[in-house]
């Protein structure tokens, strides 16, 4: 019995090494990593690159990109530096994206593993709760949540976490139902391990690959949701974000479309990077699937 438990570990490590190698051989995934790393670097370097508040007026309004070398991406209707906004906006987007994903994944794992591991009436009840959340249109629910909590970065993160956790919960539940009958789980139970230990130490690591793939896509979804919220004026009013830049640029769409275009490109590049990484992870963690294609 201990042999079963022990032999699982080294195999897992070599599988991880193979996955990393296969991921790095995938050019699209590497491009994704490079893009995401640049966005992260931009977010981290924002206070040094643009120490001034990105919401402050610094120059003549409506400077086009390239018109004044001090403001390479131009200025908006209030004379705010677009380049500073893009750099500071990366902070909010990535912060919201990763934090909301963390909340969603943590809740989803807790609920999904409880439902899948214990089964019975707990499972029935939790599946009902998931169904309620999945039936109500997520973005509408999110608008309501954020409006109720009054718009702030925390409210946006919390709201996105609340509307996205059922995706992970469903996945984790399905994985747990499949894994809980396997021999090594029976063995662990026979050794008298507690439920918590079996759930988190024995089953969860084996269910991780699909969770990791879904999590990377969830970051992308969260960034898209944040941008849509702040575009509609439900973002944090004291923080500049790509979505709010598009929202205010929209008013000058006829005369200065670059104000809308530039932050949009930033969103697309970041989200694209995350999706490419998600695809790469999917191929790397499902070797069987990758070989077939």
């Amino acid at each position, binding site marked *: 019995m201990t042999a079963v438990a022990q032999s699982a570990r080294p195999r897992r490590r070599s599988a991880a090494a193979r996955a990393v190698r296969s991921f790095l051989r995938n050019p699209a995934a590497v491009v994704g990593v490079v893009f995401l790393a640049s966005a992260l670097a931009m977010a981290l370097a924002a206070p040094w690159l643009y120490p001034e508040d990105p919401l402050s007026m610094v120059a003549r309004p409506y400077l086009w990109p390239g018109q004044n070398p001090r403001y390479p991406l131009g200025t908006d209707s209030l004379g705010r530096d677009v380049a500073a906004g893009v750099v500071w906006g990366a902070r909010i987007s990535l912060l919201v994206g990763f934090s909301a994903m963390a909340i969603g994944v943590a809740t989803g794992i807790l609920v999904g593993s409880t439902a899948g591991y214990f089964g019975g009436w707990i499972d029935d009840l939790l599946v009902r709760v998931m*169904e309620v959340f*999945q039936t109500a*249109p997520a973005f*509408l629910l999110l608008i309501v949540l954020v409006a109720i909590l009054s718009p702030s970065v925390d409210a946006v993160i919390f709201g996105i976490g609340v509307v996205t956790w059922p995706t992970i919960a469903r996945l984790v539940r399905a994985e747990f139902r499949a894994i809980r009958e396997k021999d090594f789980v029976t063995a662990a139970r026979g050794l008298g391990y507690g439920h918590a230990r079996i759930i988190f130490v024995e089953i969860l690591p084996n269910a991780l690959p699909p969770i990791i793939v879904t999590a990377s896509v969830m970051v992308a979804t969260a960034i898209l949701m944040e941008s849509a919220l702040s575009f509609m004026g439900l973002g944090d009013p004291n923080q500049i974000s790509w979505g709010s830049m598009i929202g205010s640029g929209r008013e000058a769409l006829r005369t200065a*479309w670059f104000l809308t275009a530039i932050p949009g490109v930033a969103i697309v590049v970041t989200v694209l990077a995350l999706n490419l990484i998600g695809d790469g992870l999917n191929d790397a963690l499902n070797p069987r699937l990758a070989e077939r294609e």
Partner: protein
Amino acid sequence: MADTRRLLRVLRRTLLQAVPTVLGIVVLNFFLLKLAPGDAADVMAGEFGAATEETMAMLRRQFGLDVPLLQQLLGYLGTLASGSLGFSPRYNMPVADLIGQRLPGTLLLMGTSIVIALALGVLIGTLMAMTAGRWPDRVLSVTTQFFYSVPGFWVGLMLVVVFSIKLGWLPSGGDRTIGASLAGIDLVLDRLRHLILPATSLALFYVAIYGRLTRAAVLEVSSQDHVRTAAAKGLSPVAVTARHIVRNALIPVTTLAGIHFGGILGGAVVVETVFSWPGLGRLAFESVMRRDFNVLLGVLLLSSLLVIIANTVVDLLHAWLDPRIEVR
């Protein structure tokens, strides 16, 4: 006969399962909205500039906001049970009428988007699968990745820049030309011209999903025996693809189309904002801002019902297409 009975059984089970879900949604939404700081009376008082305590108390009594929470919930459930969605003090009309005015616009927008997404998605996916690994597949796969990563509202704005502002071909907002008295074919064309940009911006994300899904499904089906048989009996590659592969590959695609209904509805809220499209999404957004909770509860309930209906239709479709599928 046996078929009909089977479908009816499926239908009854799905509807029975939907009852607790809908009830859960109503209760969840109700308490969520009651947690909100401020009610309709506060917002109205704010808009008037000032209001005395007496006016506020009167407004609250009028809106039924002065009784305990549980009583309000029971009252609301009672209203629903009598087949009504309640009354909106802000618009001074029944919620059902208000929603009835906006629903067709949203359904038209969503329906057009789903048709665009499915048609383009299945086409692109089939093309990708047929050229798997070669350059058309690569190019299309990058294109779908791009569609998948683009925020719908931003695509909408960029389409407006190109097609409305620069080229002047299509209108930039609204659902019809205001003040024009059109009839017959002109009316239909006018509506279509207003529909193209919003429906396209809403559809692109789903074009990507269906494209990728179709590619995978077509590749999967292509390796099955009945396809080899069809090719062996001398059918042309086009006939094999259209009749034997794509048809089978459609099953997973339509399943997702049902699941995505709620997502498309959420996306419609943002796209309706961009194009000032008079739909349900705008109504929901406005009622959040005005704390007009009867309207909001109505919209949330109705949209959940629409999601349930869409999923039921898909389930039935599958049970009919493929008798082996036991409905969940």
